[in-house]
């Protein structure tokens, strides 16, 4: 079943959704009207292919590339259906794109990529990155990522994103030219360091806490679900043994033979049906995983806000202390304990010329400090404003998407029950002919 073929058409500006079986519909949930790129362009990740080549350390490696297809919206609606533009990208390039977006738009909840390595696997599911099922699910996940970015009011208009979709060669260089890496490195260092904010913003603290809880509970759910899936697989598969034994038994019976034999076939069908059932459930797991990773993106925004706040507080603190120093220098009084105060007491005061020079330097620093505080304050305010808008947007998207996911889970369960009813009714008929 998996994903329906190569020419997947993104749902554009459609907020009327039916809980259909189509994986794409469920994933393209919250598409913004208006500025989104999707209004103009259809995007899909059509295929995946294996390549081999030399890597950075000149060793042979095998990797997968994904075909990104784009097509102007008008062309399709005209019915001419021209060949779409396409280019190949590998997973690491998607990662590069996302990292760029993270650094460039720290106040936005950036859509996550599908997992790098298969986690929450149950025994039948492969943890191998090269496994075709994993590759297929990753293809779907990558397409979903692109559609999410393309439908985001702010991210969709990013130039680097656009060229990711349209320019195969030289895109990497373009990204590096933006110099985002430098910002990335310093911010990364800061994010990893522990720092304490004096006046934490309550809303962001709550959001971060929510992000933690969401991540924890979804992880738990994925783990539990995977174990249950494993067990369910066992239950169904054991019924296949009924098929075998009934068949053998029917060989020694005269009147019972036919009934037994046909019942056995239904038992085989029952055992086989679990494969499709669990494959569908894997899609549900993927939907949960997306929000598991989204939780991380949310926490990242909160953390970056903390950093911004912290930097503001540091600047303000620095300014206050400089102003205090100026006052002390000007009035000659030492209000606070300072090393300079002690040394001057011990070794004598400075000359008026030295004092004058120091005062002038301080004045400059204070001026610069005030500018910095103003800047940082504005930055912080801007961050809070933009972040909060996006968080609200994210909240709505999440509520909608997860509700749809729960509904599709219920639909899956219903389908499984209906199959079970059918098989056992058929088996019952065969048994009654025994």
């Amino acid at each position, binding site marked *: 079943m998996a994903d329906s073929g190569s020419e997947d058409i993104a749902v554009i500006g459609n907020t009327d959704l039916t809980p259909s079986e189509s994986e794409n519909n469920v994933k393209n949930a919250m598409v913004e009207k208006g500025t989104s790129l999707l209004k103009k362009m259809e995007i899909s990740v059509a295929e995946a292919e294996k390549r081999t080549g030399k890597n950075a350390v000149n060793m042979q490696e095998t990797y997968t590339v994904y075909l990104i297809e784009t097509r102007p919206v008008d062309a399709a609606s005209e019915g001419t259906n021209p060949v779409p533009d396409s280019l190949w990208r590998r997973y690491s390039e998607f990662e590069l794109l996302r990292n760029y977006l993270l650094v460039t738009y720290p106040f936005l909840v950036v859509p996550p990529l599908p997992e790098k390595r298969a986690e929450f696997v149950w025994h039948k599911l492969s943890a191998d990155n090269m496994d075709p099922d994993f590759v297929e699910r990753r293809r779907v996940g990558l397409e979903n990522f692109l559609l999410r970015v393309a439908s985001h009011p702010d991210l969709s208009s990013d130039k680097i994103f656009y060229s990711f979709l349209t320019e195969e060669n030289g895109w990497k260089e373009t990204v590096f030219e933006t110099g985002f890496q430098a910002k990335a490195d310093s911010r990364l260092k800061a994010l990893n360091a522990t720092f304490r904010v004096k006046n934490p913003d309550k809303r962001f603290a709550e959001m971060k806490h929510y992000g933690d809880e969401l991540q924890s509970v979804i992880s738990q759910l994925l783990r539990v679900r995977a174990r*249950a899936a494993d*067990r369910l697989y066992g239950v169904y598969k054991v019924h296949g*043994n009924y098929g075998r*034994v009934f068949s053998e038994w029917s060989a020694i019976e005269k009147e019972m033979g036919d009934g037994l034999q046909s019942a056995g076939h239904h038992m085989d069908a029952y055992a086989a049906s679990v494969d499709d059932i669990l494959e569908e459930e894997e899609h549900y797991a993927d939907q949960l995983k997306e929000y598991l990773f989204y939780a991380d993106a949310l926490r990242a925004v909160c953390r970056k806000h903390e950093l911004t706040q912290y930097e503001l507080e540091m600047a303000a603190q620095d300014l206050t202390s400089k102003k205090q120093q100026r006052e002390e220098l000007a009035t000659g009084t030492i209000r606070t304990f300072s090393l300079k105060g002690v040394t001057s007491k011990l070794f004598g005061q400075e000359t008026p010329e030295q004092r004058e020079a120091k005062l002038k330097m301080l004045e400059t620093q204070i001026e610069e400090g005030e500018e910095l505080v103003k800047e940082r304050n504005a930055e912080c305010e801007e961050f809070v404003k933009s972040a909060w808008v996006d968080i609200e947007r994210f909240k709505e998207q999440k509520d909608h998407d997860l509700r749809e996911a729960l509904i599709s889970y*219920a639909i899956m369960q219903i389908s499984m029950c209906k199959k079970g009813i059918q098989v056992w009714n058929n*088996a019952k008929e065969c*048994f009654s002919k025994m």
Partner: protein
Amino acid sequence: MSGSVVDNTVSSGNSSAAIPTDVSGQILDLDEDDDLEVFSKDTTLTDGSSFNASMQTSPASMINQYKFEEDADTKDIFVTVDNPESHVTAIETYITYRVMTKTTRSEFDSSEFEVRRRYQDFLWLKGRLEEAHPTLIVHPLPEKFVVKGMVERFNEDFIETRRRALHRFLNKIAEHPIFSSSEDFKIFLTAASGELTSHKKQGPGFLSRMGDTVKAVAAAVRGVRNRPQEFTEMQEYVEAFSQKIISLDKVTQRIVREQKEYLEELKECGPTYALWSQSEEELAEPLKNVAGCVDRCCKETEEQVKNLSDHLIPVLHEYVLCADTLKAVLRRRDNIQADFEAKTEALATKKANRDTMRDDLDKAEDRLEWANNALKSDWTRWQKVMRTDLRSAFVDTAERNVSYYEKCLAVWESFLHSQRTDAEGNGKVDFS
């Protein structure tokens, strides 16, 4: 655990292929109108077409009619086993079961009896029947003490499973054309405890003297020489059947194990959804709802597992034991034949005591012919009963599975319904 459920449909096998002499006697009984009335009041008779108003009059159809009525109306005795009670004495603790009999048979002094019997008594009855009829097939009793997975003899589930099996056992005896007229059976059903004890002590009756002889011969047997083809075929069938039924028993037990493990995991899903709902606002309601649905499905799964254990597994298990019984019966028949062959040879070779030997040989020949005929018809009867039992056990299992899925289906459909009415009410999502 009381409750006098008159569950006579548990083993609905009809004693159709009975040996001619018995059947005719029973047909005569059925001409009484009173008998018919008794039967029509019994709602547990599943064969509703017993009293076909439009009776055909041609001789052939009359015979068919008799057979038909015989199938339904032969049941003139109803036995139930219920109401287990524990008894404590200085020496031991044991369980007794109430055995109730309702019958219209003339050989019984009254029409209703109620006695209490313990497992030992059932064992005794089975032994007596086997002794008296070495080549007839006695339905197995539940095992003495199942060690595997058992906590103790007086565990509720164990007692209930055993009660059901004892009930099936007695009903199989009652439905058997020969066993049901056994004197021991009658005493088992009717005698007060003291009477039964003294009857047990009396020692073997004349019938079992024959059994003793068989046992004595068995000791000296050297194997059968010319076993008739049909008995060899029977043996081959029993071997194969035994393997298949053991496999089915194992497969079913494995299914139960897997389902129990699935249940263990599933039990953690509901609480996880519930935990999640505590962090959410808009999503809280659907999450709580899903948690409830998963919990309800857990309950249904639990019941499903219990059903398999309580209904299918005991029946499969009984037929595993049956296969052993069949093997024993075939062995006993072989022994009787071996005895005859030995005596034939003795007469041909030895000179002394020819008259006594000829006498013995004649008796041995009669015994063999009787044993072979008894086995042949009982075999046919057994096959029919086996087919009915296993068919209804599997049909029952399939029905329970359907019911399980139907219940789970309803659970999830109600969730969907709640989400749809919710969403449409809020104008959020259009489900058209």
